């Protein structure tokens, strides 16, 4: 690997225009420009405000349940016969995934800004549930846009959101998945500029969202690093996470970016294979373009029309990726690889049986990559994987594919 000079940190981005190299930026309609500038001003104040940090830490500890444990997966390690495998257990957070870390942070900002209505987009429903949860906790009405296809395949989460008092609006435009939900949320925001806060669920969108969401999720890597030093007295050799928009991945990666000995791998949804159109591997099989407020790797045709992706996992079913990942790929710091639907499904079953943990289908992609790599590594080497969510929401999807009636 090219050794970057020490001074040239991989953690310095974005610049003041929200750029990570050529990626990122603020590609939004004029109506929204004053809003994202306001948000940036508030975020710049909040991130240096000890009271804000104290409130975040307090809710992290008592509402989310932080720190999440670092768990040595003994039986999986034994079975694979190679590197020691550790999980950062974000699936044990309140609401069952890492998404809540970001939601708590952003709703505190929304409160500071005096906003009285929350909107969000969701794919798997985990971000929708987390948004509905914090909206309930802070007493704000919440509208969640969700692709009609996803409403169907993530029914338990739809019900959860409704119980929490959110209004779930199915989006039928396009293929009815995450990108269409995001378009619709942007249309809502442009219409309701005075009172509405758009709570974006991943490290993508116009500046300052990619930076802000990363910073709220970076707690994952900060904790994991300290926990790993405590458990093993050293850093891991390999850090792995699944990448949809990229929030859980950048959350665990960020603390390790300047640690030269740590190899970092992001796992994209390879769907049914990269040959056709049925995948969501934006970096491995896409090209740079502009969508949803930022320049980043996208799945698109030769005319710049965005393609609909496919993944068994609704949370990875997005034809783009956060801009910081695009940059980390291009500078060679992080390697991005695809995992196919069937590999994720096998990993899902393996973890369930060996460790008694039902993972979400999203981190099952990361797990499948762990299963490939661990046996090729020495027993003295260490893998750290972000177990970003639990699989309760996916049991119906998996049951259907495995031909097991529920």
């Amino acid at each position: 690997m090219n050794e970057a000079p020490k001074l040239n940190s991989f953690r310095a981005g974005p610049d003041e225009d929200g750029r990570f190299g050529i990626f990122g930026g603020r590609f939004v309609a004029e109506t929204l420009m004053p809003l994202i500038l306001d948000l940036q001003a508030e975020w710049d104040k909040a991130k240096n405000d000890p009271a804000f940090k104290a409130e975040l830490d307090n809710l992290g500890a008592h509402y989310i349940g932080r720190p999440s444990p670092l768990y040595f997966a003994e039986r999986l390690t034994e079975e694979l016969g190679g590197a020691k495998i550790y999980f950062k257990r974000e699936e044990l957070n309140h609401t069952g995934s890492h998404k809540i870390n970001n939601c708590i942070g952003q709703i505190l900002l929304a409160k500071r800004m005096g906003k009285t209505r929350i909107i969000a987009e969701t794919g798997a429903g985990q971000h929708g549930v987390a948004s509905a949860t914090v909206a309930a906790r802070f007493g704000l009405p919440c509208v969640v846009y969700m692709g009609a296809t996803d409403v169907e395949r993530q029914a338990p989460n739809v019900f959860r959101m409704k119980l929490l008092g959110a209004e779930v609006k199915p989006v039928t435009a396009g293929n009815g998945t995450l990108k269409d939900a995001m378009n619709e949320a942007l249309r809502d925001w442009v219409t309701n500029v005075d009172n509405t806060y758009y709570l974006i669920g991943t490290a993508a969108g116009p500046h300052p969202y990619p930076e802000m969401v990363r910073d709220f999720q970076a707690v994952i890597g900060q904790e994991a690093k300290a926990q790993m030093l405590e458990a093993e007295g050293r850093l891991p050799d390999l850090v792995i996470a699944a990448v949809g928009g990229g929030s859980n991945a950048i959350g665990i990666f960020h603390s390790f970016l300047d640690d030269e000995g740590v190899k970092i791998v992001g796992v994209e949804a390879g769907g049914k294979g990269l040959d056709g159109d049925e995948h969501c591997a934006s970096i491995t099989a896409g090209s740079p373009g502009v969508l949803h407020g930022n320049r980043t790797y996208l799945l698109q045709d030769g005319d710049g029309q965005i393609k609909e992706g496919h993944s068994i996992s609704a949370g990875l079913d997005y034809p783009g990726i956060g801009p910081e990942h695009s940059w980390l790929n291009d500078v060679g710091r992080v390697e991005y690889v695809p995992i196919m639907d069937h590999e994720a499904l096998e990993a899902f079953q393996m973890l369930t049986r060996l460790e008694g943990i039902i993972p979400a289908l999203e981190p099952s992609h990361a797990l499948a990559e762990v299963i490939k790599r661990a046996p090729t590594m020495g027993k003295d080497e260490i893998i750290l994987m972000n177990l970003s969510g639990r699989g309760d929401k996916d049991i119906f999807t998996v049951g259907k594919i495995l031909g097991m009636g529920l």
Partner: protein
Amino acid sequence: MTARMDRKFADVASEGRPVLVTYFMGGDPDFETSVSIMKALPKAGADVIELGMPFSDPMADGPAIQLAGQRSLKAGQTLAKTIEIARRFREEDQRTPIVLMGYYNPIYIYGVDRFLTDALDAGIDGLIVVDLPPEMDDELCIPALEKGINFIRLATPTTDDRRLPKVLENTSGFVYYVSMNGITGSALPDPSLIAGAVERIKTHTKLPVCVGFGVKTAEHARAIGASADGVVVGTAIVNQIASSLTEEGKATDATVPGVEALVRGLSAGVRSARLAAAE
């Protein structure tokens, strides 16, 4: 090229009426019909034509224009073909300014330099690119101005006096005032509020100010045109086209005449606008 736009606004102003700007989606419902629609527009009274470039993810558009874009893409429309529509139109009309309107990604993928060269060559006068605010001027706005193509910026109700100079800085041709916070196809707000906003913008610029979003009828055109230098009609035209199509979305004998009739009515609206103001 900028000259064609300036001349048109000056000519129309000397007639003592506002400019009628008409939007339609290039390639809706198919390439050839689109060429016919475009050629029919000035004959029915349109002064400036906004030619929509379809995009898979039109984040600032309501259902009508979303569907028009889908029909167009399904019929095989591309950015190259949209530029070709303009070229075909220019073969017989050298006076009507053409403004391409859409989103940035297809242009970015086409290549900014190549796009500007081809657009200029086809006789295109201006660009409206919804997702390129002034903060992103280096991408397309500055290169376009250097080549002599107008970059027409949207000003919105959220563009306050502090921000307005930044929005107007590199704007040329005209200023497009978006009548409300929202997407295309929404209901028109109170014309008196719009008149106030137009006045506010005019204290910052000498450019003509056109108002769009929500203008659907001749009556709207008349009311808005009483204060604005121009009115932009889009969704109404797109809806008219949609209503003329077969169930499979194919053009019929009613498609082009339907647009002509609608635009003739709108044109009568703008022609009586200043009478309305004087009343």
